[in-house]
């Protein structure tokens, strides 16, 4: 139910403000929240840290764009196929890595390598437009998944985030989720109890890839232009893991909270520093280090601590 409340609250944003600056900011933050939720499912609940979620983001983005531009497929259908393609790629790479028993840093590095290979391939093959990138033709009709106003885009990305939240909550409370956490905590023990750890991780990776690919598909429709560096560049892999880790890893609301915080922090840093290029990011990075130093479990951890403190205070008051 908190999900409904949060999403409902956020849905009202376009009714309060007509500022496209705010809406654009919120769209980007929600996009990162969606991509981060994908990472969180695998990294937070499953304990498998990926450094290459760009592979899924980019696959979604390119499939949507290429289907529309080269094969005349409807954008909405392209979106669905894009998500499916991302999931499929997640399943394949997951199968390869988990069957080889890769975990920890090895898993992180292989995901990074997959993303890099895709980036290089996309920057030379003709179907992606090679280095030139792919431009989706401007066609401002809802049928083409393009809107004159920012608000519909905002509601769509919010709906996607809502779905990802519900899905994560459902997984958390399911048998599958319990197995996933068991694998994270102690894979050998889980296996000894008869959990098929490889299949569990594979399932998590597929859903995770699908969520992240949805973010990529949305990016294409929102900006109508992608190239190899946008789609498969390390920036999105970093954003994907930054949001949940800052917000609270392995929690349902962590990625959303983290994405909003990280984006806001970026803005504040710019506001404080004035026109000097780079200075805002110095502060941004510094605050990042400080957050980790003083809130090692992310913002969700702070909330838990606060709640515990409050409860203690209450108990003391009652007593």
């Amino acid at each position: 139910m908190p999900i409904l409340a949060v999403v409902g609250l956020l849905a009202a944003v376009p009714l309060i403000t007509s500022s496209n600056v705010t809406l654009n900011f919120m769209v980007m933050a929600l996009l990162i929240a969606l991509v981060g939720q994908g990472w969180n499912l695998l990294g937070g609940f499953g304990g498998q840290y990926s450094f290459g979620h760009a592979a899924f983001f980019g696959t979604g983005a390119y499939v949507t764009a290429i289907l529309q531009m080269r094969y005349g497929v409807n954008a909405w259908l392209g979106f669905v196929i894009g998500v499916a393609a991302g999931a499929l790629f997640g399943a394949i790479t997951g199968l390869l890595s988990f069957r080889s028993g890769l975990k920890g840093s090895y898993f992180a590095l292989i995901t990074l390598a997959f993303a890099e290979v895709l980036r290089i391939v996309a920057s030379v093959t003709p179907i992606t437009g090679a280095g030139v990138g792919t431009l989706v033709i401007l066609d401002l009709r809802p049928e083409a998944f393009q809107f004159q106003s920012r608000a519909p885009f905002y509601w769509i990305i919010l709906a996607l985030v809502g779905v990802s939240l519900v899905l994560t909550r459902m997984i958390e409370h399911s048998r599958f989720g319990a197995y996933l956490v068991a694998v994270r905590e102690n894979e050998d023990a889980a296996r000894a109890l008869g959990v098929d750890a490889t299949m569990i991780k594979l399932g998590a990776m597929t859903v995770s890839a699908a969520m992240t690919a949805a973010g990529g598909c949305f990016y294409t429709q929102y900006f109508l232009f992608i190239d190899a560096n946008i789609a498969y560049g390390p920036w999105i892999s970093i954003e994907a893991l930054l949001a949940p880790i800052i917000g609270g890893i392995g929690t349902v609301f962590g990625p959303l909270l983290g994405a909003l915080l990280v984006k806001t922090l970026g803005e504040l840093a710019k506001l404080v520093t004035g026109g000097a290029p780079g200075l805002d990011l110095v502060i941004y990075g510094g605050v990042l280090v400080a957050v980790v130093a003083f809130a090692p479990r992310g913002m969700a951890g702070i909330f838990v601590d606060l709640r515990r403190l409050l409860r203690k205070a209450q108990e003391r008051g009652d007593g």
Partner: protein
Amino acid sequence: MSRRPSAVSRRRFLQSTALGAAAAAGVLHAPAVLRAQGPAIKVGVLHPVSGALSYSGQQGRMGAQLAIDEINAAGGIKSMSGAKIEAVLGDAQSTPDGGNAEVEKMNGAGVAAIVGGYASGICLAASQTAARYDLPYIVDVGVVDSIVSRGLKNTFRFGPGFGVIAKTAIDSLVTINEQASKAAKTLMIVHEDSAFGSGLAKLLNTQLPERGFQVLETIPHPTPTRDFNNVVLKIKAQNPDLVIPANYYNEYVLLARTMQQQKVRPKGIYSVLGGAASSYKFVKEFPEAAQFIMDCNHWFDPKNPKALALKKQIEAKGEFYTYEVYMNYSCVLLLADAIERAASADRAKIIAALESSTFAGHVMPYGPTKFVNGQNQGAAPANTQVIGNDIQVIFPAAFASAKPVFPMPPV
């Protein structure tokens, strides 16, 4: 990490506070002055001043700001009772979504038009967002031709696109070669593999064979490339008459240095939009490697006193006079002229004024200004060559300051 979270412009914050302070002061001291002079016209100045493209972005911003200062010092927009132009600066952070976010902010700040973008990807995204608000957008550099072929009514490009640059490059090459009694027959192309390099290589590959050249090999490479020894080895093995590089500054410098190191000396190095081939910085730092390199690129009109005055001004600041500077400078002047004729900061009127523009007060070696579907038909690149410690224009003849030296004389 060249990408980062986009954010609200601190500049706008600063500007609005500065503006607030100025307005307060005005109310207190000199309401008459305020009435005599129209309210400032806000113009968005958008460049990638941080991230991978930050050097170019910072150069571009400098050019735009110099033009604005100059216009304001000369009495602002006269048809609007001397209204001053006020820059709303934006940082595209070297990414399309960064540029997009800035356009939203600029629109929110009520700018009359936007100038800049630099990279093709940023120009594509930013002009499209500006189109949502019918906001005039002047592309400063972005050479990809799809920028002006999408049918956006708000988007204007003052400089030349790929098609024109490649065509001019080939025409000039043929002429230079004929003047040297066809010294060159074979060539190799070395290009970076993103938007501009690969697009160009494709055009060169289809058109050069028709003009009697044999393309021995086309070598793409990524940006950044750490080492050019292999590329140079290939050049050495095939021994072409001409080498045509098309890449960004760092790779260009590495390539030219490696060629010098490996003692590879073709009859000519003829680059198209070569990152360093017509850069004063390169000539100053590596005069030997740069000697006699020809380039077909954006360049200023060396016979225009205004262009030379601007060059002095930039060099006095200890900066290099790069194409980003004078192209942005010219674009801002073009916009100011349109606003002057529109006598209004109204977006539709500015677009109409740009469409009918015949602006001649720029510093580029262009033909008469005339926009068709947003593209300036007069725009053309110039051919330059490094001769001695200077860069000379060798083509087109109307703007030339020297004769081409081809084939390269032996050391």
